[in-house]
């Protein structure tokens, strides 16, 4: 890791790579994940899934399953008349269990609750379901073709938590949502261009593999519902549960224990309504723990077909960009309307473009539902856009680094009207990546290099709260609603609280992700936690300190003057720590002060997005022209994070994101047949990178203090994924002369492109 720092020096322990707080528990196996938990009286659920990708359910017979000793309940949609079946924070189109129709292979049809998991599994085979198969569409082209089968006949309710302001536009029954991004005179921009590059790019349906599959426990008691779940956004899940079961928000408690990775796959609601419905009918606490194979069927990333054209002046300056993005969104909306919104924004890149005309439509198909995936609409478009930057550079005879330097927006410059000005120095980031790749020296024969860059409107909505309680011994408990999903938030947020309260780190503890006991946070996604929750903690700390000053004046200084001092106050030259102030004010040994922190769309959070997340990646590759295998010889990331609260954690995030991007660039793709069968819904055949696949790596952190967050911080953790596919494709172009248009760049796709380059070429003997 290399750090390039121009920011002011923050207080300790900010900027220090303190060990992660959950590290020892996780590596020793002491950490308890949802699947490790049990509730007295708990029963186990298993799910019968549809073998058909699209069918009407003509009958369900559970009598034989119910007759099996140990089976407690067999539940289908018909048993849930008192439950609002359809959920979805954007479009409420997703029944928690199939309702008359199945729309993808693997959709839950019947839930069995039994005394133990083996009995529940055995009972699945005793359920008889009859289906009338319906025509199937698995590609966006097929779903929009004349006469295509319609997936959703019923108009779904639009929900307020979709993450953007405008209503969802739908211009075809199989269009889940449509988003546009337009400015400038696009026709004039193209008409006056010296060069127009145009092409089609395809980005795969992918799976955001997390080691922990989806798991939930639901327990109805005292007129309310408690759910333990491996979810990223407990408050969003709470909202959906309250709506499905007609409960006030205060009657639903969602608790998130340790989580084994998310990457977006655990954002928003997944199996929690189904688990709660099964617990309701079984009248028992119920655990539903999916396998990885079932998790793959639960959500995945949006595939994309991108048609894009970019217009340039002769000196390489962008004049305009047109794009049409079609997302393969699968059977239900999940979070794809927002992914589509973001894809339309992010395909513009971090560039100054006078005219833009982008449409992104999310398309329903009979495949598993797509939702958030780290990078979130960015990599789909960045692959296309950044490929075109290199193509234009080549055709105009300009260095690929130079064409980017000519086009990136400058610090403070807005990418589009009303957007927050760029809070990053993109030109400097490009130069850091170039330096790490030794850009000025020629690559070795057979190798190619590339540098790609992206900017994502990140941070989601600035809605978060924090309570910071200073106890009678001066130690601090901070409550936040954001989830530790492995990214290190439990460490970073404690560092922020310790710094703000002038306390050693071991005097600060965190309570996270419990909708009843912890305070509200909209979501754990969009790389927002360090920035937004950090600001809420800072506000809570300031509120606590201001109360403590007042209390010190009142209880220690007899209304006289007190001087703020490190970790407390000075009264007549004597230091009193926070605990002494609390004890004095309560006139006893106990008590505490409660500081409140609120973050909303006001003040520094008025302009959207809350911050820009930068992805800047360099790659050097070679290609085995006989087998078509790409070898990444070096990968470089520049993490433009303003201030790395914990540099080692930032580095881990950048390396992890880039390797995840490399997985999609090289191997990851869920393959569906036209008939709707998923051919590789398991980790043997869906190839996720291994430790041994990690190439030589240079991680650079650029810390210029230019973020809106505490100490100039801003979000990271996703950006490094976004440009990887483009960087690999552009480097392959420079190594071999082939231009790749479809990710992943499998050996066969590379081989076919090489054959097109050299018609008639055969073995060299």
């Amino acid at each position, binding site marked *: 890791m290399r750090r390039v720092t121009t920011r002011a020096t923050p207080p300790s322990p900010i900027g220090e790579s303190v060990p992660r707080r959950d590290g020892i528990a996780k590596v020793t196996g002491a950490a308890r994940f949802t699947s490790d938990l049990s509730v007295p009286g708990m029963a186990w659920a298993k799910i019968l899934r549809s073998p058909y990708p699209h069918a009407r359910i003509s009958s369900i017979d559970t009598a034989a399953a119910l007759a099996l000793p140990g089976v407690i309940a067999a539940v289908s949609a018909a048993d849930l008349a008192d439950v609002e079946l359809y959920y979805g924070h954007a479009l409420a189109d997703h029944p928690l269990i199939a309702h008359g129709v199945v729309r993808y292979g693997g959709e839950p049809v019947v839930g069995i609750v039994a005394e133990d998991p083996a009995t529940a599994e055995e009972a699945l085979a005793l359920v008889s379901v009859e289906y009338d198969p319906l025509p199937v569409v698995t590609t966006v082209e097929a779903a929009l073709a004349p006469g295509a089968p319609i997936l959703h006949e019923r108009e779904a309710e639009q929900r307020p938590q979709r993450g953007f302001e405008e209503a969802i536009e739908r211009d075809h029954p199989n269009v889940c949502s449509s988003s546009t991004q337009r400015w400038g005179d696009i026709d004039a921009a193209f008409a006056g261009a010296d060069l127009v590059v145009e092409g089609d790019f395809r980005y795969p349906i992918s799976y955001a593999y997390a080691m922990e599959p989806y798991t939930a426990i639901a327990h109805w008691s005292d007129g309310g519902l408690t759910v333990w779940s491996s979810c990223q956004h407990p408050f969003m899940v709470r909202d959906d549960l309250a709506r499905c079961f007609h409960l006030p928000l205060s009657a639903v408690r969602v608790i998130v224990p340790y989580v084994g990775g998310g990457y977006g796959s655990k954002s928003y609601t997944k199996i929690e309504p189904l688990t709660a419905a099964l617990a309701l009918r079984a009248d028992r606490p119920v655990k539903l723990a999916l396998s990885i194979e079932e998790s793959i069927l639960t959500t995945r990333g949006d595939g994309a077909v991108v048609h894009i054209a970019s217009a340039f002046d002769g000196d390489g300056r962008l004049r305009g960009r047109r794009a049409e993005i079609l997302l393969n969104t699968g059977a239900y909306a999940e979070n794809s309307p927002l992914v589509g919104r973001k894809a339309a924004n992010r395909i513009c890149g971090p560039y100054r473009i006078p005219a833009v005309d982008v449409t992104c439509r999310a398309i329903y198909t009979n495949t598993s539902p797509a939702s958030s995936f780290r990078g979130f609409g960015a990599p789909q478009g960045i692959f296309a856009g950044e490929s075109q930057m290199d193509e234009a550079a080549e055709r105009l005879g300009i260095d690929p680094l130079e064409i980017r330097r000519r086009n990136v927006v400058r610090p403070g410059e807005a990418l589009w009207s009303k957007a927050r000005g760029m809070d990053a120095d993109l030109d400097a980031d490009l130069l850091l990546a170039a330096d790490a790749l030794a850009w000025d020296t020629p690559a070795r024969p057979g190798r190619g290099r590339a540098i790609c860059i992206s900017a994502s409107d990140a941070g989601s909505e600035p809605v978060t709260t924090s309570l910071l309680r200073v106890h009678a011994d001066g130690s601090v408990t901070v409550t936040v609603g954001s989830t530790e999903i492995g990214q290190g938030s439990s460490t970073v947020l404690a560092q922020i609280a310790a710094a703000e309260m002038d306390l050693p780190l071991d005097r600060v503890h965190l309570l996270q992700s419990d909708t009843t006991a912890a305070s509200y946070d909209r979501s754990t996604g969009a790389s927002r936690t360090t920035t937004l929750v950090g600001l809420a903690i800072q506000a809570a700390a300031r509120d606590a300190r201001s109360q403590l000053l007042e209390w010190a004046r009142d209880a220690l200084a007899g209304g006289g003057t007190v001087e703020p001092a490190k970790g407390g106050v000075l009264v007549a030259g004597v230091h009193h720590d926070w605990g002494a102030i609390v004890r004095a004010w309560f006139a006893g040994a106990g008590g505490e002060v409660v500081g409140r922190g609120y973050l909303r769309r006001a003040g520094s959070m008025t302009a959207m997005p809350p911050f820009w997340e930068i992805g800047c990646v360099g790659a050097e590759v070679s290609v085995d022209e006989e087998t078509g295998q790409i070898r990444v010889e070096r990968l470089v990331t520049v993490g433009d994070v303003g201030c790395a609260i914990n540099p080692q954690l930032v580095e881990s995030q950048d390396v992890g994101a880039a390797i995840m991007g490399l997985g999609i660039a090289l191997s990851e793709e869920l393959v569906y047949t036209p008939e709707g069968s998923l051919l590789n819904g398991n980790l043997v055949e869906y190839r996720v990178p291994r430790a041994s696949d990690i190439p030589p790596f240079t991680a650079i952190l650029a810390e210029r203090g230019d973020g809106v967050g505490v100490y100039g911080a801003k979000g990271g953790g996703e950006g490094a994924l976004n440009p990887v596919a483009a960087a690999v494709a552009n480097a392959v172009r420079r190594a071999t002369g082939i231009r790749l248009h479809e990710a992943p760049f499998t*050996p*066969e796709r590379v081989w076919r492109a090489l054959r097109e380059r050299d018609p008639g070429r055969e*073995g060299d003997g």
Partner: protein
Amino acid sequence: MIPPFALARPASVSEAIATFADAGQDAAWYAGGTELLQVMKMGLARFGTLIDLKGLPELRGIAVDASGALVIGGAVTHREIERSSIVGRELPGLVGLEAHVANVRVRNQGTIGGNLCFAEPHSDPATFLLACDAHVELWGAGGARELPIDGFFLEPFVTARTPDEILLAIVIPKAAAGEGRAYEKAKFRERPAVSVAVRLRVAGDAIVEAVVAVGSMTDIPVRVPEAGTALAGAPADPSALGAPLAAGAEAMAELDAVGDLDGSADFKRHLAGVLLRSATRAALSEAIARA
């Protein structure tokens, strides 16, 4: 999840065979479980009793017999073969092969006998042993018998072994003077995309005999006699193999290749030609060293 089953742990082969006879059709041999337990988890197979062969002394061990042949027990793991100095001396190509089977967890658990009996069309050892002219020793209710490995694989996941038979050992003939045996594969996931094994013998300045086998390309690993014929008679000089290798590659391209997630039939035929070149060169280099 795996449906409940009984686990029997016999102390000898005869006890194992008796246990199998008692359990009837409901039993399966369990020799490592890296494939068996997966298919049971997936619900593709269900057995009431698994008979654990891993501890049977008759299936353990790696040795050289009186004829000089290499004998590998059916329950020897991939990892044990990979680390065996005997195999390293007698059949170095197998050590290299085993070092790259799947991943280290599979190698540590999976056995060579289990691998061959499961007859997954992408098996690494199956292809190599086919070129090496190995045979397998079986022992079942009807007694012991030996089968050449060419003919052991009948179709994907089906072998000539009867359900009651245990694969006791694999026997690989000693390399003749001037003989080299090599295995090369293209691997993009856990299993090979295509693999090619070559056994050839050099006498004087020429290759006098060659056997070529290809795996992961057709329904079962197969020998490609035309490719062997193309190499036989060629000069024992790696720089002078252009025409014979091109003819061999053409023979590979005639095979009835099956496309899968690793690539189309066309691509596999191309890879087979590429791998034939590298495997032939590796076998030739070993052959010259042994000449």
